[in-house]
C-alpha cells in the first residue's frame, strides 16, 4: 500500500511538470557550496609572527627621538576616534589604558591591530586574550597608514619618549 502511494505521487509529480509547460532547461547556477574559510590558528601556522601580527606592516622605522609634530597629529586623531575607549593611564575603560602600550607590543603589531582590526581579533593570540577581558570588539576606526603611524608616535610620547 505504501509503495502504491509512492508510485501515485510519482505520477502526480510527472503530470504536474508536464502541465507546467515551463522550460526545463538545466540550471545555470550551482548552489555555491564553498566551505567557510578555515581561520588559521596562529599556533598551527609557523609563518605567523605573533610579534608582528597580521596586516600590511612588516617593518616600521622608529628613530629613537620623538617626532613631536607627528605625535601632535596623533593626539588629534586620538581625541576624535580613540579617546572614548582608551585612557592615557593604565586604567581600562572600554579598552585597555595606553600607558606603556609601546612596551607591551611592537610598533608593527600596534599598527596592524589599528588598521586590520577584525583580522587581528580573529587570529592574533594577544588580541584575542585582550578581547576576553574587554568583551567589546575594538571598532575599526578606518585610520589611514599615516594616521596609524602618528597615533603610534603619540603613544610613544605618552610613554615618555622625548
Amino acid at each position: 500500500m505504501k509503495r502504491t502511494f509512492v508510485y501515485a505521487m510519482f505520477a502526480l509529480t510527472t503530470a504536474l511538470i508536464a502541465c507546467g509547460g515551463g522550460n526545463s532547461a538545466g540550471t545555470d547556477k550551482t548552489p555555491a557550496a564553498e566551505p567557510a574559510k578555515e581561520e588559521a590558528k596562529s599556533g598551527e601556522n609557523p609563518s605567523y609572527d605573533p610579534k608582528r601580527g597580521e596586516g600590511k606592516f612588516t617593518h616600521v622605522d622608529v628613530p629613537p627621538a620623538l617626532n613631536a609634530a607627528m605625535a601632535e597629529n596623533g593626539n588629534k586623531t586620538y581625541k576624535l576616534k580613540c579617546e572614548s575607549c582608551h585612557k592615557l593611564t593604565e586604567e581600562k575603560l572600554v579598552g585597555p589604558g595606553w600607558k606603556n602600550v609601546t612596551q607591551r607590543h611592537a610598533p608593527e603589531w600596534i599598527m596592524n591591530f589599528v588598521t586590520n582590526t577584525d583580522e587581528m581579533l580573529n587570529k592574533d593570540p594577544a588580541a584575542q586574550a585582550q578581547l576576553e577581558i574587554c568583551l567589546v570588539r575594538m571598532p575599526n576606526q578606518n585610520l589611514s597608514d599615516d594616521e596609524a603611524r602618528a597615533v603610534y608616535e603619540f603613544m610613544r610620547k605618552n610613554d615618555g619618549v622625548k
Partner: protein
Amino acid sequence: MHYSTKSLLVASSAALLLSATSCKPKNAATAVSADAASKAYVAPGKYDEFYNFVSGGFSGQLSVYGLPSGRLLRVIPVFSVDPEKGWGYSEETKPMLNTSHGTVPWDDLHHTELSQTNGEIDGRWIFVNANNTPRIARVDLKTFRTSEIIEIPNSAGNHSSPFITDNTEYVVAGTRFSVPPDDVNGDVPINSYKKNFKGYISFIGVDKTSGKMDVSFQIECPGINFDLSHSGKNKSSGWFFFSCYNTEQANTLLEVNASQRDKDFIMAVNWKKAEEYLKAGKGKKVPVKYAHNTYDDKTHTSSSEIKNEVTVLNAKELKDICYFIPCPKSPHGCDVDPTGEYIVGSGKLAALIPVFSFDKIQNAIANKQFAGEYDGIPVIKYEAALHGEVQKPGLGPLHTEFDGKGNAITSFFVSSELVKWNIKDLKVLDRAPTYYSVGHLCIPGGDTKKPNAKYVIAYNKITKDRYLPTGPELAQSAQLYDISGDKMQLILDFPTIGEPHYAQAVSADLIKNNSVKFFKLEENSNPYVSKGESTAKIVREGNKVHVYMTCIRSHFTPDNIEGIKMGDEVYFHVTNLEQDWDIPHGFGIKGANNGELLIMPGETQTLKWVPDRVGMSPFYCTDFCSALHQEMQGYIRVSPAGSNVPLTYSTGKNLPPADSTSGK
C-alpha cells in the same frame, strides 16, 4: 501483487485526472516546474545578481529587493515619516517633508526611474514620485537615501512621473488631475471643468553632476488626465510620450463618464522644440509656490526652500510642441521600445494593443495627416501613426516592457497574465498566468535602450490564497519569471511592502561597489557635531538646552545629565564616533512624543525632547551594537521650573559619595 498493481493503476490515473483538470493554473503549485527553486536560489552569504527597486505605493517608501532571491534588502524612507530611522522626526530630516502645504507626513509612491546616460542605466540615482501631494524625489544610490524632494506646482495627482529623458536631462511630471492653475482663483463650480481646469506637464531639469533638480518649464495643456509616459530614444530622442484619458473632460463618475469615447490620446511632446521656445523667451513667468528640499551628506542636514515662480509654455499657442495620437479606450501604459521606433499604448478597456511608429508619426506631421484639433492641438490620424495592432492579446492591458530581442511583454490585469509578443509582426508568442491580477511588470533595463532580459517580475494587485492567511489584508505578491528561454517560467513568489506599482531592476555590479560604508568624521560639518568625546558638552540658551553627545560601542557621553527644568526644550545632538561599516547606534528616550534616532557611523542627528514631568528619564541605545549594548544607557534628571539644580553632565564620573550604601 495483483491487488497492488490494480490499485496502482487506479491511483495513478486518478492522479493524472486530478492534475489534468488543474491544468488551467488556478493556484500555487500548478505553474511551477521542478528546477524553479534552484533558479531562484542564492546561497547564504552570496550576493544577488540584481537590485530591484520597488515602489512602496501607499507606504510612501521605496523598497529594495535582491533578485533572483526576492530577499528584502532595505526600505528607504522617502515621502512618509519613518520613526524607525528618525526620518521626518530628527531635526535634520524634518525639512525634507516640507511642502507649500506645510509638513506632509505621508504620500503614495507609485513610480521609479533609474538615472540614465545615453539611454542606459548609469546607477547614480533613482527618481520616484509622490502621487498625492505632487512631488518628485531623488534617491542617491551611494547612500540609499533620499537626497532631494521637489514639489510640482500647477499639479494634482502626480501620476505621469518621474520618467526621464535618455541622458537624464529632465524628469517629467504630468498631472493626473487637471485643476485650475495655482495663480488663479480655484473657488469655482466643479462643473466648470471644461472652462477652468488645465493639465500641466512639468519638465524638471537635473544637474549632470550633482543631480540637483529644478523646474525648468511647464507646458500648459488641455484639462484632461495625464496617466503615464516614457521618453523617446535613439531616433525618437528629444520626444516624450504621455498617455491621456478623460478626454471627455468629465468631472464626476469618471468610471462611466470618462469611458465614453472610443479613443483617448497618446500625447507626443517635442521637448527639444519646447526648449527652443523657452530660449526664445516665449515662456510666461507665473507666480506659484512650491518647496524644494535638499539633504547634504556633509552637514547631515536638510534644508527647505520655498520657490515662487515657474515658466509656462502654452501648447495651444506655441505650435509643434504637442500632438495627439488617438489611442483606444483610456490608455494607461505608454511604453517606447529599445529602438525608439515603436510606442505601445495600453487601453485599460481595450481588447487589442495598438503599436505606433515614430517614423509614421513624423511623416504624418510633415504631411499634415490630421483628423482635426483637440482644444487647439493637432490630432494625428490613427491609421497614419499606427504600425499595427496586437489582436486578442488578453483583457485589460496595462504596461509593457521590452526584452531587447525584438519582443515585448505586456501585463494584463483582467485576464491576470503576462503576454509576450513580437513587436514587428505583432504575433503573440507566450502567455504566463499571474497570481493574481498583475499591475506593473519589470524587466531589468526593460524601458531603456539596453534591456538585460534575464527575468521579468510581475507585481500583483491581489494575493488571496498565495500566502498563509494574515487576516483581511495580505502582502501584495510579486512573482519572478525566468525569461532567458522562449517561454516565461515562474520561479518565485515574494511578498512586498505597501502596494508596488512601477519597479526598476539593474545589475548589482553597477551599484554595489559605490555603496558608502560610513561617513567620514573628518568631513562631518553638522553645526552640532562633537568631534571626539572630549568635545561633548551641554549649552543652555534660555530654555533651549543643546546636548552635544557622542556615542561609541558602548556608551554615550554624557550619560548623566542634571539641571534640566520643566519648560526646557532639549536637543540631543548625537554624533556616532564609529568609523566602521554597519555600526549605527540608536537613541531613544522615555516619553518622547517623537521617534528615535538611528545614527550612522560618522553622522550627527538631533532629537528634540520636551520633558512633560519632573523626575528621571532614561535613554538608551536601540540598535544592538556590542556585547555590552545593554549597558549603553543614561539618565536625565528633570527638575521643576525655577529649580536651582545646576546644569551638570558627565560620563563615568558621577559616582555615589564614598560613605553612601545601598541600604540607605
